């Protein structure tokens, strides 16, 4: 078992192509979330909407460590994960519109994005509910002698659920290749970690199950990527689970209904000063790896992608009422 802090990276030498790729990925998420907020106000998107602004480095950095064969289990704050995992922005937005071309055919909405081809298993809106599933996906891989990783995202709030503890124990007991990624944004909805956990150093909980763990500065995309790749290699090489804590912060309210009574504006502003996009862009510019022109081009590309995605969602038909009861049960026998 090993535990380490890899939050502070040093020179972060990264080539220009990769730097632009990471920046592009984070900006895609940020601009998508901004558009979602706007569309929510315009009443195009309804229901619960949980935005990921501020946490982009986590999804982007971690998903860099996976291959297409690996599986992803995510939470209800999963637009960014879905997008970076390869689900088209159009299909994501169409889903939030409740349209037929949505990635869940309008049956899931913002909290339940799915894609079989991307091995993206949701979109789970029961806190902690996805962890046992990740254990099972990894068990299936192990029993079928496949060398794949199941990557399971969850928040700090999930650590209080029994399913977290049951899943950590099962994965450790049965030696299952699960990369548990805790997106610790310090608040379970409106309750700060210190008010819900007697021990706020979450990695120590993993250690108590004999699970290797690491914590990383979740606002630093290069640090996340580097540590996530190391963690994924441990999982791949050992076939055993790994607990990977990303210390991050959400810039927006928990959902669109949250008046944010539980945290100060000063605290939010302080964290915004550590914006993963701005700090990474600044660092890359200082190093001369990325120029203003590059960023401008990324913004233009993303703006076009968003325009196209909105147009796609707008144009998509509504699911027919005749199909209301489709998919309660399968239409075919399993092979």
């Amino acid at each position, binding site marked *: 078992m090993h535990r380490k802090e890899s939050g502070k990276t040093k020179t972060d030498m990264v080539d220009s192509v990769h730097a632009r790729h990471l920046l592009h990925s984070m900006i895609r998420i940020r601009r998508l979330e901004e558009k979602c907020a706007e569309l929510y106000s315009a009443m195009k998107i309804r229901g619960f909407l949980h935005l990921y602004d501020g946490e982009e480095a986590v999804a982007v950095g971690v998903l860099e460590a996976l291959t297409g064969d690996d599986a992803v289990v995510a939470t209800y704050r999963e637009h960014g994960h879905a997008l970076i995992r390869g689900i088209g922005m159009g299909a994501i937005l169409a889903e939030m519109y409740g349209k037929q071309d949505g990635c*869940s055919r309008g049956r899931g909405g913002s909290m339940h994005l799915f894609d079989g081809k991307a091995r993206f298993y949701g979109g789970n809106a029961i806190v902690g*509910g996805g*962890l046992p599933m990740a*254990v*099972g996906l990894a068990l299936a891989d192990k029993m079928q002698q496949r060398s794949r990783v199941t990557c399971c995202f969850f928040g700090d709030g999930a650590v209080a659920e029994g399913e977290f503890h*049951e899943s950590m124990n*099962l994965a450790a007991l049965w030696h299952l290749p699960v990369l548990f990624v805790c997106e610790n944004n310090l608040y379970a909805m409106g309750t700060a970690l210190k008010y819900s956990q007697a021990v706020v150093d979450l990695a120590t909980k993993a250690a108590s199950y004999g699970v290797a763990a690491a914590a990383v500065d979740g606002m630093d995309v290069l640090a996340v990527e580097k540590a996530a790749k190391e963690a994924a290699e441990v999982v791949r090489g050992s076939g055993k689970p790994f607990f990977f804590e990303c210390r991050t912060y959400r810039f927006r309210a928990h959902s669109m209904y949250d008046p944010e009574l539980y945290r100060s504006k000063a605290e939010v502003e302080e964290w915004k000063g550590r914006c993963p996009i701005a700090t990474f862009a600044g660092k890359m510019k200082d190093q001369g790896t990325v120029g203003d022109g590059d960023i401008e081009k990324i913004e233009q590309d993303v703006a076009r992608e968003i325009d196209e995605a909105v147009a796609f969602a707008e144009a998509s038909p509504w699911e027919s009422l005749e199909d209301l009861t489709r998919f309660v049960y399968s239409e075919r026998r399993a092979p």
Partner: protein
Amino acid sequence: MTNSDKGLHKLTYREAVREAIREAMHKDERVFLMGEDVGRYGGCFAVSKGLLEEFGSERIRDTPLSESGFVGAGIGAALGGMRPIVEVMTVNFSLLAADQILNTAAVYLYMSGGQFNVPLVIRMATGGGRQLAAQHSRSLEGWYAHIPGIKVVCPATLEDARGMLWTALQDPDPVLIFENAGLYNMEGTVTATAGPVDIDRARVCRAGKDITIISYSASLHKSIEAAAILAKEGIEAEVIDLRSLRPLDEQTFLNSVAASHRALIVDEGCRSGSIAAEIAARIMENVFYELDAPVARLCSVEVPMPYAGHLEQAVLPQVDQIVNLVRKMVGADG
């Protein structure tokens, strides 16, 4: 053991379930069994006794007391291409996994727009009658049958105990199999070639023209016993084994009630909001004008199950109660 000249095979309900598991494990290497004490202990009700030695600890997998964790792991394993049989020791403990069953297994296909079906089988013991008091005696199969997205089956006979599992494993969606613990010692014979049976049709167990008794699981046997007593009095009761509570094969009982003009539902669940209530409603909706008497229900008394034997028996539906109710309904009670 076998009565080969008749091609019959004598066994208990417990052995029928075990044979079904063994056969499934042999036929499909994706099938495995996991649950509390299924391996080294041999199963809380000894259903899986001997299977660990035969199949090894990877496929007969003891789990920690983590119902939510291992039921959820079963869901994940099913999504990952395996065909897990998850044994939850009793329905009472399944409430610790209710989130996984109701909020994940039952909804994943729909919520994903048809992308992720969950071919999971969950077996659990159900029912009262063994003086195990309030926390070990629930009959919640009707409660689970409320939920779209899962199937709920209740084998009452040896043939069904033997044959429903394979069909459930072939199903692309989650199937819950409820085994009434009072039936495990029931002995009988099945044909040596007994095999898979359907899991979506009710069955007429006994033909009769005067009244239809609709039941399932352990209560079915009480209903059959009552029908035999009534037959001696010249009252011919038709007895229907629902077999599946979701989907509910209403056509079979509606046809029967339309012909017999009377219906009694015998259900070990509590009366309020029960599957018996659902069946009564469907009879009213569909064959109301065929009825010669109000639909009647015999369910468990609505109390937490008491420990004392005489109190517990007073809670559960009994043969003499069925007999008396039927006599009243057909106007034969003087």
